[in-house]
Each structure stands twice: as structure tokens, then as C-alpha cells.
């Protein structure tokens, strides 16, 4: 829906430049807002696939959200279960701590997970449930980690929730285990959630270059591998805003160097792989990465040729959040697609700077959400395609605008070299579909009518 704030990038005061404690810009009342901190925390931790994720609160927070993210698993699926304490009015009056304790016990006994994450919700935070104490007691008694995630919805945005989840990992998980001896030390990926299996493409590339992916934080992760994340040699922050704090803290605590990177587009992918090898301080690995990236890039150039011909000069409006707000721009540029409008409402100041580095001066910045605001940009800039998330998809359909889903519900993996090829194919598909012509032409009888006038 429509924005409230003016088109001022200056209004963005969030992320790495400002102090960590400063909250992200909050949506104004009366807007159709995005997700909350609870949602953000869940999104970050749910991809730990073998853990149980228990929502402590009324049914809504779990009932409205379980199993609705496209974060894929290659094995365990406990994370896909919707566990909730389903608090009712009596629990709210007398407290739900007993129910929580019983729930934890039940899950531990029946599902034997390596860990249980317990999420606070607005209600449990407001009535002052001592979740930390319940979790601590349960953890000791059951001898498995029971981790409180104190990120109730009202504390702020989805991104703040991501960060609070990162803090829970730092406080309760990272550093509590040691890698088995045969695992060679390598890189942690932070803020990559394996949507549509993107992590697997990245992992394949890293393996080809001989780089070990040590801990996934958290796409398709196993609880155990995160406990030894502190032994990694390098951290790569894939989704820059959300978990940068985690990487910074790991640098100061464990002396692990980090860098921010992306896998959208060949250039970004090459940069990220090189950066890994460079920070690993391994000459041989750097040579291997160079050979791999050269080979992949030159093959990609061949494969992309027909698509580039079709996509050259096409204009897109990009409305997404976090790292994708700038990294997809690089990918699109490599395909010859010009970004004429870009959303910045979920971007940090750094993200916005990166966007500015990548787009032309006449690109429009869309600082706040809202279907009609995006549509307006598409119309005014004569864009050919809209690239955004699920909540805006159906609006695009109403307006008969070709669309690609880039957010959490996407079903195609766009990361890495192959991902770029897939993106090119999807763009071509979407643009070339005959439905747009059919939709744009009126019914034949209406057409006849127009000739009469």
C-alpha cells in the first residue's frame, strides 16, 4: 500500500553506521506494515532444521506462520512443525510458565531434538513471563539446550528480530561445541537461509574451489554445526543488515575476520569467493578460486548470450529488502537490464550507498512500501517488469505487469553463476509470456466499439 514518508533517503537511520542499540525506523501507524521482530527472529532461526521451534503465546503467532517459508532442508524436518503453547485467557491471567515447561518437556521427550528454541511473543513479554528462567531450568533438567529468544513483536521491525536472533545465537549457541577432528576449518555463511535451495548452489561452488563451508547460519543448518562456528577462519555475511552485529561480535570475541558479500550476479559471486580465499590466507586456494571463477564466468557468458540479446535495454523496478536491494542490481546489470526504480525501505545506509554505486542518477528511490507507490514508479518510468515479494505480486497481476518473485516465497534459486542463468531465464519467461498481450488487449467487441469513435 501507499507510503507515508517522503522520498528521503536521509530518513534511513539504521544499520551499521548508527549505534547498534538504535532501533530501525518504525512504520508509522496506519500503514500496511511488514513483519515484526518475532517474525524476524523466527525467520533467522527456523532454518536450523533439526531443532524444535516452540512459540510461547496465543495461537496466532504460530497458527498464522508455520511452514510458510521456502527454506529447504536436505534432511531433518523438525523445524517444519508448528509448535505452540496456544495460551488462552486463563493462561494470561495466571501465567503460562507451567504450560511452557510442560510443552518443552513434551517436545524433548517425544521428538528428542538437539535443541529447543523458545520464542517470546507480545503477550508473554507483556505479562512478564520469565522465559529465561523456565528455559534455563529446563535445559539443566533435560540436558539439552533450551534457548529463549526474546524478540516479541512489538519491540520493532523484522530486521531487529533478525538481530535479536543473532544475539541469542551468540549468547547460547556459538562457542558451546567443538568441531570433530576430521572437519577442516573453513568459512561460515551468515544470513543465508537456503530459500529455494540457494545455499546448495553456493555450497557446491565453495566445494569446487576447495573451500569448506563450516557453519551455515542458518540455511539448512544443523544445530551442532552452529555450536562450533567460533572455530571458522572467515565469516561471510550474506544478508548484510540483519546479522552484521553477529559477525562483528565474532570478530571481537574470536578474531574471525568477516566480509559482506552476495551471490547474486557473476561479479558478486566471484568477488565473494575470492574474498573468502583471500581472508583464509591460502595462496593455493586463491589460485583455485581464480581458475574456478574464470571458467564459470566464461561459460556463463556463452550461456547468457541469447538471453542478454532479449533482455538488453529492458527496464525493471526492484522492490525488495536487505542485501538483495543492491546485489540484485548487479545481477540485473550483467543481464543488460536497467533498474529504474528501487525500494530502500529495508536497506541500511550502507545498502543505500551500495545501491547508489550501482544505479544511474535517474533511478528512483522508493523509501517506503506500498503497492500503489511501486506501481506508480513502474508506470512513470515505463518499466517492463517488477521484481518484488509475494505481498506485492497480486497487485502486479491486477496491473498486468510482468513480475518475478524475489523474496522468501520464491521457488527458483538465483544465487551463483547458475542462479544468474536461471534469473535470466525467468526474466525472459515472464516478459515473453503471451498472457500480457492478451491481458492488454480489450475484448473484441470493445475494440470494434473504439473504432466507431
Amino acid at each position, binding site marked *: 500500500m501507499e507510503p507515508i514518508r517522503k522520498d528521503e533517503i536521509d530518513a534511513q537511520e539504521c544499520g551499521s553506521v548508527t549505534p547498534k542499540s538504535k532501533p530501525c525506523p518504525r512504520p508509522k501507524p496506519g500503514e500496511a506494515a511488514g513483519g515484526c521482530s518475532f517474525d524476524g527472529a523466527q525467520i533467522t532461526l527456523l532454518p536450523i532444521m533439526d531443532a524444535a521451534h516452540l512459540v510461547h503465546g496465543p495461537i*496466532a503467532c504460530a497458527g498464522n506462520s508455520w511452514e510458510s517459508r521456502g527454506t529447504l532442508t536436505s534432511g531433518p524436518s523438525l523445524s517444519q512443525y508448528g509448535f505452540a503453547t496456544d495460551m488462552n485467557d486463563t493462561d494470561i491471567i495466571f501465567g503460562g510458565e507451567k504450560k511452557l515447561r510442560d510443552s518443552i518437556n513434551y517436545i524433548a521427550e517425544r521428538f528428542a531434538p538437539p535443541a529447543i528454541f523458545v520464542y517470546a511473543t507480545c503477550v508473554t513479554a507483556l505479562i512478564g513471563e520469565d522465559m529465561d528462567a523456565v528455559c534455563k531450568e529446563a535445559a539443566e533438567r533435560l540436558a539439552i539446550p533450551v534457548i529463549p529468544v526474546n524478540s516479541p513483536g512489538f519491540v520493532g521491525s523484522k530486521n531487529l528480530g533478525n538481530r535479536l536472533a543473532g544475539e541469542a545465537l551468540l549468547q547460547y549457541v556459538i562457542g558451546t561445541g567443538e568441531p570433530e577432528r576430521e572437519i577442516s576449518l573453513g568459512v561460515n555463511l551468515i544470513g543465508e537461509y537456503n530459500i529455494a535451495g540457494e545455499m546448495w548452489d553456493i555450497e557446491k561452488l565453495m566445494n569446487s574451489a576447495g573451500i569448506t563451508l563450516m557453519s551455515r547460519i542458518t540455511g539448512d543448518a544443523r544445530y551442532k554445526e552452529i555450536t562450533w562456528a567460533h572455530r571458522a577462519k572467515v565469516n561471510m555475511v550474506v544478508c548484510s543488515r540483519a546479522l552484521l552485529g553477529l559477525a562483528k561480535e565474532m570478530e571481537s570475541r574470536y578474531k574471525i575476520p568477516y566480509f559482506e558479500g552476495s551471490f547474486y550476479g557473476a561479479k558478486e559471486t566471484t568477488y565473494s569467493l575470492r574474498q573468502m580465499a583471500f581472508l583464509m590466507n591460502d595462496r593455493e586456494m586463491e589460485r583455485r578460486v581464480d581458475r574456478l571463477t574464470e571458467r564459470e564466468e566464461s561459460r556463463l557468458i556463452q550461456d547468457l548470450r541469447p538471453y542478454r540479446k532479449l533482455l538488453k535495454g529492458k527496464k525493471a523496478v526492484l522492490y525488495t529488502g536487505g542485501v538483495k536491494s543492491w546485489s540484485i542490481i548487479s545481477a540485473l546489470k550483467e543481464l543488460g537490464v536497467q533498474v529504474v526504480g528501487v525500494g530502500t525501505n529495508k536497506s541500511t545506509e550502507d545498502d543505500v550507498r551500495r545501491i547508489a554505486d550501482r544505479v544511474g542518477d535517474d533511478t528512483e528511490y522508493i523509501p517506503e512500501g506500498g503497492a500503489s507507490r511501486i506501481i506508480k514508479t513502474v508506470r512513470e518510468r515505463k518499466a517492463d517488469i517488477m521484481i518484488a515479494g509475494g505481498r506485492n505480486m497480486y497487485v502486479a497481476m491486477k496491473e498486468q505487469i510482468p513480475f518475478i518473485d524475489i523474496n522468501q516465497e520464491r521457488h527458483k534459486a538465483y544465487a551463483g553463476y547458475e542462479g544468474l542463468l536461471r534469473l535470466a531465464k525467468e526474466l525472459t519467461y515472464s516478459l515473453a509470456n503471451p498472457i500480457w498481450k492478451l491481458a492488454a488487449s480489450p475484448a473484441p467487441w470493445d475494440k470494434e466499439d473504439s473504432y466507431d469513435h
Partner: protein
Amino acid sequence: MSKDNLDIKDNNNLFKEERYVQQRENKKQFEAPCSEQETAEALAYSKSAEYMEKNFDRKSVVINPHKACQPLGSVMAALGFEKTLPFVHGSQGCNAYFRSHLSRHFKEPTPSVSSSMTEDAAVFGGMTNMIDGLENSIALYKPEMVAVCTTCMAEVIGDDLNSFIGNARIKGAIAEDFPVAFCNTPSFVGSHITGYDAMLKGILSYLYTRSGIQATPGSGEGTGEKLNVMLGFEPYTGNFAEMRKILNAFDTEYTILGDHSGNYDSPATGEYEYYYGGTKLEDVPLAANALGTLSLQKYTLKKTQEYISGTWKQEISALSTPLGIKGTDKLLETISEMTGLPIPASLTEERGRVVDALMDSHPYLHGKRVALVGDPDLLIGLIGLCLEIGMEPVHIVCSNGEVDFNDQKFKIEAEALLASSPYGSEATVHIGKDLWHMRSLLLTDPVDLAIGSSHLKFAAKDADVPLIRVGFPIFDRHHMHRYPIIGYQGTLNLLSLIVNTVLQQLDDNNSGFNFELVR
């Protein structure tokens, strides 16, 4: 470029490729996997009667719930009225969930706003958020009415909607005469159907009271002799069209109270609007003069029904989802009684055609054991349909049936209905249970078919039974909601869905001896 070059593999095929399989194998070093034997044992245990008993003893945790919360229903109810903006008073995430949830089901945008309460609101109350929110949203989305519901947060801190909205008027944030209907919908009570009811009642009573009209029930004054019709929490836009078809066949005047089908089935004209269709606001107070009100979801619409019979002093006929031949017969008889009009020949003829279709298919459906999940009114309809074509409902789970021991009208009615037929003799009705309970039921006492929402797909897959998607939410199939499931036509649609699933299964599972052309 030729189309053939555009081969995009989906995840199913892509990740079956050898290199990915290898990668997953390699990855096991990071896991602490159980041995295959241990996994098999655990799986077998989870399918055992012993485990089922423990599962049903479970008191605290809910696993895979089959209900959403009150304000989600409220948003749907608000969208049933013309140019009405749903306004969720509470912290912002809830509204995002409602919008995604409803949009994923209907494949349409959901206009709805939030007052975005944060910690300061938690301490000082949400009045400022309400006042700013009303002012901003009215300026931006230009609704003709705002319909405010609450989330848990606003309820826990005890925000007073009436006085907040009053203060917004005093402060000039909204015009004195701008309609703002409201209702309280804490998520820790009830479910999406309770919330639908609360908002529908909130809107009807608000618009009626402010109009100053004194109801003269049955006078039909200003309206002709109209009937009011309420479909309730209705996930099928097609059901509205079907209901209109039936009422038009009777040639009766009617007002649908709460019609969100326009908002959730709008044409792609090339221009998006926030509001499509909905019950006209000025029709609501006049509805108080109608002959009577027909409710198609009696368990969902409890409070609204009470309000209409109490304040409007109107005759209420409350049915459950009119599904199957008998269910639809009852609907037509009720309309006929309420309006005094005869049942139209066109519908009798349609009835005959659908009975014929049921006869054609009955050999494939007789004795099929079925598991059912849904909201109370839908379940009554589905049980009726199963019984009349000789299918045997076995497990019936209703997460949001009345769990109060003294108020189990739904359970009592469902059990009476099942007892009325030998085909219902094996059935058990479980209220307040979740889909993990259903999984135990499916595994210990297998059935042939499962009927329920998309959420049931996990349990159905574990039990290896085909799932026929009916109800809310249906996220993983397209356009199901566009086809009616009520009335004779709806019965035919459901029948096709069920029988063709069975026939497909015959083809898929053929052993080489029964791959037949004619079925």
C-alpha cells in the same frame, strides 16, 4: 529464441541431480545423525497405538495447529463491506501475517493496515497510535469506513477502542461523522471464525445504531420484502456466486451481509484499486427491516445471530455450510419457508442432474474411509455429503470446535448426524485437537482419503493418503476458491474432485492388470 531453450528445472528435479545428491551425502558429517535403524524404529514408534495414546494425553503444547487467530477473521469480515479498510490495532507483525495468509489463499492483494504499536505503546497505551493511525490511513487509502479490531497486545494492556476512537474525533484526526466500526478480538480466545463473527456483529451494530433507524422487522420497509443472508468466514468466493444464483432463481430480494467476494475475485483491468465490491454501508441499517436472516455458518456466526434476533428482533434461520443433496435441500426449504416463495423448477432440475452424477460415481466411493479436518460448519456439511454417497467418515478433527465441556453443540450435532447412518458408525469427532493428533489417527487407523486444508498435506503424506483440499487455507493449489462447494453445483464440484482423485489413484497405483480406459 525457441521455447525449448527455456528449460527451467524445478526444485524437485534440480536437486535430484547427482551433484546435489552427493553434496547432501557429504553434508552428513556435519550432522549427528541417528543410524538408519534408529530412525526406522522411531518412525515405527510414532505410528504405534502406544504413541497415539501419549499424543492424545498431551495437554500443553499444540503441534501443527489448524486454526488462525481472531483478527484474521476480522480482516476478512471487514473486507465484506464497501470501501472499508481493515485496521488492526496492535503490533505490526500480526497485520503482515494476515495479509500474507489471506493473499496466499485467494491469490489477491489484501488491503489492511496496522496501528504499529511498539514498546512505548505497551507502556503508555496505544491511543496515540490509534489516533495517528486513523488519520494517516484515512488520508492515504480514502476508505468510507474503517473497521478496527485488536490483537493480543492491545487486549493485554487493556486499550479502550471506543474511547480512543472518540478521542480521535475530539482531536480532529477524523471527522465527527466518519464511520469507524470496531470489535475486540484477542487471539488468546477463540479463532479466526470467532473473530469473523465479532467484526460482523461490530459492523452491523455500529452502522445500525448510528443510522438512528428503529427496526421494524418483517416490514420490509424501504427494502421490499428482503431476506438477509450471511455466509460467514467463507474461503470460497465461488460460494457467493452460487448463493446469488440460488436466490435469484427464487426471484427474492436479498442483502448479503458481509460479501468479500468482490475484494477477493476482482478482474485484472490493468489498474489496481483498494476496494472492489462489498455490502453497501447504507444497506446495513435497512437490513434490520428484512423478513428474516439466513445464516449459513451457525457455529461461526453465534454472536451475530444473537444480535440480529435480539436487537433487530428478526427471525433467524441458522444452517451449517449447505453441502450435499440433503444440505442443499434444507437450504432451499428454508429459503422457501422464510420468503413464502416456491422452490424454483430450475433448481429441482439441477438437483436431479447432481443426483444422477452421484449415482454415476457411487461405485468408486462406496465404503471409502475418510478423514476430515475443518471449521465446525464446514465439517457438518462434509459429513453430510460423505454419508449420502456411502463414504465413511472415520476421523474428524476440529481444532476450533467448542472445547468448553458444557457447550459442545457442534460435537453433539456432528455425532448425532454420524449416528443417523450406518456409514457414520466408525467415526470419532475430536474437538480442540491439532494436526499432529490427526497424524496419529491416520497412521494407527488408516483411511483411503483425507479432506482438509493445505496444512493437512504433511500428515497425509506421512500416512500416504491422497489429500482433497477443501476449506481454509489452501495455499498450494490454484483457483479452488473460485469454484463453489455449496448448493447442488458445489456438491457436483466436490464430487468431481473426490471421485477423480480416486480414479487417478487407481491409474497411479495400477499393477498392470487394471490400467483401464473406461471407468
